[in-house]
């Protein structure tokens, strides 16, 4: 049971890397490289809970970076141990925050799919975004069910909703605009620029359309080729991601390690 953990390196090398870390960015890269297998291994242990593995690996990598930033050589603990705890903590938090450990009831999934189907129809008929009452009437569901389904979609992963709206099944990524929207140039967004770089193109594009172009969620759904509820989920999750990164990336420079603001 107590075999060498993945990604473990000799204590002497570990010490050397952490001593170089404050002044040498390459030390950080080496640490990331050495311990990425550990992050991936831990991410895999959380697989099959309704979250794409790629996302989990990304979450685990964020945990690894946090661990590297917070590790203190003075503590009498191997980095791999410390990193594993931090990474698992990050993964658990990911699930807890999003409630993905809980399954969406089938009934709500069905309602969500129906909402997706009727939203464009109703918008067309009324020339505006519909009310919940209007959606409920068309879906033969109660307004409460509609609201529950909306919340469920935003909070949980329901991969069947991620499929493109078009019947030809073009992957949403294919219909992205060619231009690379530089949302970082938006006033106030510079602080999240590094985190923006980590977002997949579609997520960046949705942010750009909502916050730069000022399109409504229904308009974005049409442009990007996904359902409106999927747009809603992308926005909710992306904003949450940026927020978390903004909170865990304090301005660098001062020796604020261990400071509890």
């Amino acid at each position: 049971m107590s075999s060498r953990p993945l990604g473990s390196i000799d204590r002497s090398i570990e010490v050397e890397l952490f001593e170089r870390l404050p002044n040498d960015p390459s030390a950080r890269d080496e640490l990331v490289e050495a311990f990425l297998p550990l992050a991936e291994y831990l991410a895999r242990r959380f697989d099959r809970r309704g979250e794409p593995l790629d996302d989990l690996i990304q979450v685990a990598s964020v945990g690894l970076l946090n661990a590297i930033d917070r590790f203190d050589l003075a503590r009498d603990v191997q980095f791999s141990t410390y990193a594993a705890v931090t990474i698992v903590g990050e993964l658990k938090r990911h699930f807890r925050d999003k409630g993905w450990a809980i399954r969406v009831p089938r009934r709500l999934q069905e309602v969500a799919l129906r909402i997706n189907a009727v939203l464009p129809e109703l918008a067309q008929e009324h020339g505006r975004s519909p009310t919940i009452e209007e959606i409920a009437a068309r879906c033969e569901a109660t307004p409460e069910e509609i609201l529950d389904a909306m919340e469920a979609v935003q909070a949980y992963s329901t991969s069947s909703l991620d499929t493109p709206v078009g019947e030809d099944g073009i992957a949403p990524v294919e219909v992205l605009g060619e231009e690379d929207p530089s949302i970082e140039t938006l006033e106030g967004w510079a602080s999240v620029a590094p985190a923006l770089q980590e977002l997949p193109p579609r997520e960046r594009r949705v942010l750009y359309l909502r916050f730069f172009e000022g399109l409504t969620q229904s308009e974005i759904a049409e442009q990007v080729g996904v359902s409106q509820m999927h747009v809603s989920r992308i926005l909710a999750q992306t904003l949450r991601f940026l927020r978390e990164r903004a909170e865990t990336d304090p301005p660098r420079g001062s020796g604020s390690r261990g400071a509890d603001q």
Partner: protein
Amino acid sequence: MPDPSSQDAVLVSVPASPEYVNLIRAVTASVAARVPLSFDAIEDLKLAVDEGCARLLTVSRAARRMQLRLTASDDGLEAVVSIDAEVGTWPPPNIEETFSWRVLSALVDTVALDLDGGAPSVRMTKARLDPPVPSEAP
């Protein structure tokens, strides 16, 4: 405070913790649906409430309770989230240049960061349905 319009206000008080933001969001959506706000507007308001709560929970770890106050009017819905902790500086300096402010002001029609007796709040309004374009912009 005998403000007659506040009789219809919905008040929710939850522990000041991220796990309860879902509940705040769900109540907001439920009340917004009755006003009614459009589907698009409700989704935007939910995101804004999310952001508002996150902002408040970041500014103070001493808060014990987080409160949501929803008041419907002829124009739409006002949502105010607040925490019961005193903070030094609110709104934060240069708030209008922050990511948070940008997100909030894009999602709702008006945002205001207030201090009520030392306790910080985020006040947001969202118009009912899709209102016609204002005929005379100043």
